[in-house]
């Protein structure tokens, strides 16, 4: 089956940040199939150098607007560990509530606005306003409510205001929490069920493609791990997050301003599908029913199913948010002074699951509580090697039976399925500042 294939998609649309898809096949031999990352680097390492612990989360939040809450919380966890700042139970609950809001908003945005146009063969969500108005209105309603959680608890959904080292500068009132709870129950849950129906009707358009790889996510004993847990690999099991460097092994490749990662194979996958494969037993019954309806099974090896795993997870976020609000209401929300008196000056690691996968921050502080060393490893960066490996398997499999246009569209859908956050991934930091 000898064939030439030459595909270049410059500045792939409907992804966050700038990337190009490049495929080069001559006489049936695949020379290149990869995602080039061309986003301009922002050099966050230089931005953090010598900065106070008050500013670490503010600055790293600006690595990425879409993932801003995830960066803030991961950064705060690393800072709190490094400086020995304990936080209260209320702080942890409020942070978990924020994580649910951010995960919901991001998963909904991706499924409806960025991925759905592929399934419906249109170029963006805008034509859907005319053809599927009720679906678009539902998507906006769900996104709005998810953002309302961010507004109520964080002060603002993009780059939240209230999350600081040692706690919160503001706490929502019981009335605000009750209002959120009511909307989650009366509106979000039915909208989630309707979403599952809509997605089920489109599921036939999901490409059939399997490539087993290593799946890495957090895992905890109690809940579906998003805010904390151990690092868990489908190949090697659980290790504490202090082992994160061994589980990521960053390296530079010439075709990407973002570094690549590997653990036990040439590549691994993080994100909703990895969380599903590792933690499906921790999901609520409604999410498990959704998974069954959408054909998502444990041990899934089709990367295109990542979008489905995001939808499934959205139900869990909505329902667990209700459970967290109930706990907060039981305790009675009260303003607490953030704990900002360091008890030590050293190194701390933070890890959380952000919508696109596991995120690590590590900082070392000097005795003035200023940063001397910083490292962030971002989910999309961890997925890049896996995306390249998928392309290298996919292209030879379909080259004989599909047109160039179809192959291009499948490759674009593949990259979008990972929901890559390219602006995030080029801002990995790993540096010992030269004094």
């Amino acid at each position, binding site marked *: 089956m000898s064939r030439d294939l030459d595909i270049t998609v410059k500045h792939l649309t409907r992804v*966050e940040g700038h990337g190009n898809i490049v495929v080069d096949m001559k006489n049936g031999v695949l020379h290149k199939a990869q995602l080039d990352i061309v986003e301009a680097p922002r050099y966050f390492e230089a*931005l953090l150098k010598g900065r106070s612990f008050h500013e670490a989360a503010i600055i790293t939040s*600006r690595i990425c*607007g879409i993932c*801003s809450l995830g960066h803030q919380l991961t950064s705060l966890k690393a800072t709190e560990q490094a400086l020995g700042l304990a936080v209260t139970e209320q702080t942890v609950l409020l942070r978990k509530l924020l994580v649910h809001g951010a995960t919901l908003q991001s998963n909904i945005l991706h499924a409806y606005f960025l991925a759905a146009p592929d399934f419906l063969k249109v170029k*963006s969500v805008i034509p859907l306003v005319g053809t599927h108005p009720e679906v678009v209105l539902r998507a906006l309603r769900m996104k709005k409510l998810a953002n309302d959680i961010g507004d109520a608890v964080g002060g603002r959904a993009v780059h939240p205001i209230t999350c600081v080292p040692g706690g919160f500068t503001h706490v929502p009132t019981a009335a605000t929490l009750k209002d959120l709870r009511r909307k989650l129950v009366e509106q979000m849950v039915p909208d989630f069920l309707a979403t599952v129906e809509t997605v089920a009707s489109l599921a036939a358009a999901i490409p059939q493609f399997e490539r087993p790889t290593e799946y890495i996510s957090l895992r905890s004993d109690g809940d579906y791990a998003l805010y904390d847990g151990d690092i868990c690999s489908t190949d090697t099991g659980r290790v504490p997050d202090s082992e994160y460097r061994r589980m990521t092994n960053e390296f530079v490749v*010439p075709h990407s301003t973002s570094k690549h990662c590997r653990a036990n194979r040439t590549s691994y996958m993080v994100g909703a599908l990895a969380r599903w494969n590792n933690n499906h037993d921790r999901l609520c019954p409604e999410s498990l029913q959704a998974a069954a309806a959408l054909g998502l099974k444990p041990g899934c090896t089709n990367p295109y199913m990542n979008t489905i795993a995001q939808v499934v997870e959205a139900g869990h976020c909505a329902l667990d948010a209700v459970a967290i609000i109930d706990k907060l209401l039981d305790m009675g929300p009260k303003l607490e002074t953030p704990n900002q008196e360091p008890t030590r000056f050293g190194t701390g690691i933070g890890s959380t699951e952000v919508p696109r996968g596991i995120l690590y921050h590590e900082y070392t502080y000097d005795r003035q509580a200023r940063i001397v060393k910083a490292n962030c490893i971002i989910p999309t960066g961890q997925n890049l090697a896996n995306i390249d490996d998928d392309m290298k398997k996919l292209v030879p499999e379909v080259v004989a039976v599909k047109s160039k246009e179809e192959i291009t569209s499948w490759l674009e859908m593949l990259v979008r399925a990972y929901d890559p956050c390219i*602006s995030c991934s080029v801002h990995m930091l790993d540096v010992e500042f030269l004094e």
Partner: protein
Amino acid sequence: MANKPRVAIFDFTGCEGCELSQLNFEDQLLDILAQVDIVEWREAMDDRADEYDIAFVEGALSTPDCIKRIHDIRRRSKVLVALGSCAVDGGVNAIKNLHPIEEVRAEVYGKDQYLFPTLPALPLSAVVKVDHNVRGCPMTQGEFLRLFTALVMGKQFAEPDQSVCVECKLNENECVFERGMICLGPVTRGGCNSQCTNFGQYCIGCRGLVSEPNLAGMAETLASHGLAMDEAWKRLQLYNAYRLQGVRA
């Protein structure tokens, strides 16, 4: 404008948080879409166009390719709007300008540093003419709506030039200095309705400086509230590193 204005949205070096904030107008989004034709928006759609009545541009300029692209966008646009502090003032990106560029690159990419070209981070206005600013990090949503409406209706838009403190007092907040914190509100340009201090956080200065800021006085005040002088200037530089170049290290 007789026909619907043709609008395009572009991003340079930034976090795309400002663009995301545009998608977060869930209540107004469909109305906005009805009043304009969005002809190009890479983050949300596949289409591309040649000319624009209004171009909204997010992000700072930090590579040779950025400079080429912004000239091209300027040529095609009747009105060019800088969106967010990265585009208006260079934003947090400009902190890197305070360090020698070679050192910055070596720190991040080590021996591979020459693979990726970079420049100091610049606001759009350092390279092309900018017609309007929407400030903030992320851009202040209310200000965006005010400007958007003015542009669509063909009305004037005046940028606010009072400090955040004015708004904070109107909102009857307890001054965060009274609570042992510091704040950049006195020199920071309002228009955000003192969003951060309303939520008990200090103003980090994301909307840039008022036109005649008393910087020395601000630094003195910060120092008298417990910051070392060099720390005080660092806090001022968080969003003003480009504007304060040469003012004080």
